[in-house]
């Protein structure tokens, strides 16, 4: 039986796990075809603009809030791509960034994503190269990040209130609002220019994007534990999560998709 991929808090990764994650990111960032980091980052905003945010109602009466299902499918594809490029052992899942934690409220972006070097090499979790030749004008540069004061990050109390919302659309709308703040906070600005996490078009190139969205997906998972895995408007279930070969009904259960969230996980 295949074992589930365990997604851990990034602050609890073992050194070998963090190194394996860095290797996966580094190797993926060096590939420019459809196995590589640039390809997956380019699905969100520039140049493909597939990401789903907010309500889309055009062409139907359905209040189609697919923010959570779409990004769950997106993370799945990216996680597999990173694991393809990481060592055989240890095989790690995407880690989540708990921006409500006390360490985040004192240090901001996790150390794993903010140190300049690791093992004497440039840290591939700090930045990535945006290669978007079809953008106007073409973009070819490293990502930028200017995070705000750590004390501004969302609190655990706000998440407790969020998880008490009982209707999917209500929960999703409020969670997306928090998500939007963390994007703006993480991108930030240096007074002259903003960071990439703060703009939808380039956000997915910043390596912290994936762990931010892992946290978002984890909160949906925690909400599902409380309010039901199938707690979602039925009209959304057959909707396709382009460009992934999945419908909303396919992404409701993390366990059925082969992963789970854990605070820690140790093999003896």
């Amino acid at each position, binding site marked *: 039986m295949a074992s589930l991929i365990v997604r851990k808090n990034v602050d609890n990764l073992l050194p070998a796990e963090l190194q394996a994650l860095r290797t996966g990111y580094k190797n993926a960032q060096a590939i420019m075809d459809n196995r590589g980091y640039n390809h997956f980052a380019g699905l969100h905003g520039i140049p493909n603009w597939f*990401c789903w945010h*907010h309500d*889309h109602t055009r*062409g139907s009466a359905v209040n189609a809030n697919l923010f959570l299902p779409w990004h769950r499918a997106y993370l799945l594809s990216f996680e597999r791509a990173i694991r393809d490029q990481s060592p055989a052992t240890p095989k790690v899942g995407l880690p989540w960034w708990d921006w409500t934690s006390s360490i985040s409220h004192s240090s901001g972006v996790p150390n794993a994503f903010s140190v300049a070097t690791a093992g004497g090499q440039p840290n591939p979790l700090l930045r990535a190269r945006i290669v978007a030749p079809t953008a106007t004008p073409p973009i070819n540069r490293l990502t930028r990040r200017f995070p705000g004061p750590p004390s501004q990050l969302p609190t655990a109390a706000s998440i407790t209130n969020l998880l008490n919302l009982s209707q999917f659309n209500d929960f999703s709308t409020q969670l997306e609002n928090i998500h939007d703040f963390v994007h703006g906070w993480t*991108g930030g600005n240096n007074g002259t*220019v903003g960071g990439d996490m*703060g703009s*939808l078009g380039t*956000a997915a190139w910043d390596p912290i994007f994936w762990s931010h969205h892992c946290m978002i997906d984890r909160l949906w998972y925690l909400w599902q534990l409380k309010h039901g895995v199938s707690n979602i408007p039925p009209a959304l279930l057959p909707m396709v999560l382009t460009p992934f070969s999945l419908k909303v009904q396919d992404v409701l259960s993390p366990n059925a998709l082969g992963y789970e969230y854990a605070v820690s996980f140790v093999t003896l």
Partner: protein
Amino acid sequence: MASKSKAAADKAVKARPTTPSTHTADGRYRTSAVYKSPRTLPVDQLPAQFSRADIEFIGIDHSGASYEARVYINNPNADANTPPTEANGYAGSYYIFGHGGCFGDVGHCDIPPKQDSFDIRPSHPLEPIRKVVIATDAIKNAAAQGSQINVTVVPVILSWTDKTVLTDVMKFDHINVITYD
């Protein structure tokens, strides 16, 4: 939420510039044109009792910068340096994760009209959006203290690109105040 009542929508009020673009006191963030509701909501249009009150923003443009919109009740002088506290009428914030401007060719960010009922393509990514600020305590406090409610919205710009305009970042169509029993 068994039912909802929509009270005195603040209709057709595009956010209007009332202050010049400047910075927060710490210099970290820029601010932009503040929205001040041109009309007030008489408190007697609210039900006597409700378990939740939302301030709903309809038709928000999200094509530009990422910003926080701080919502104040009955504090028309609020600005980017007003502490977001209950005493100042702070009701909550909505946040915009902006597109950062247009990176396509000419017309890429123009929202096309729906062609017909057979046009099954998804919405243009820049279709205006909706945000909801859960403001139960702030609305209840304001209702208890006076006869009218007005709304002031202060944008604080978090992040931007060289393709975004920072002088008037916040645009929306109208505001609804919704209560639930």
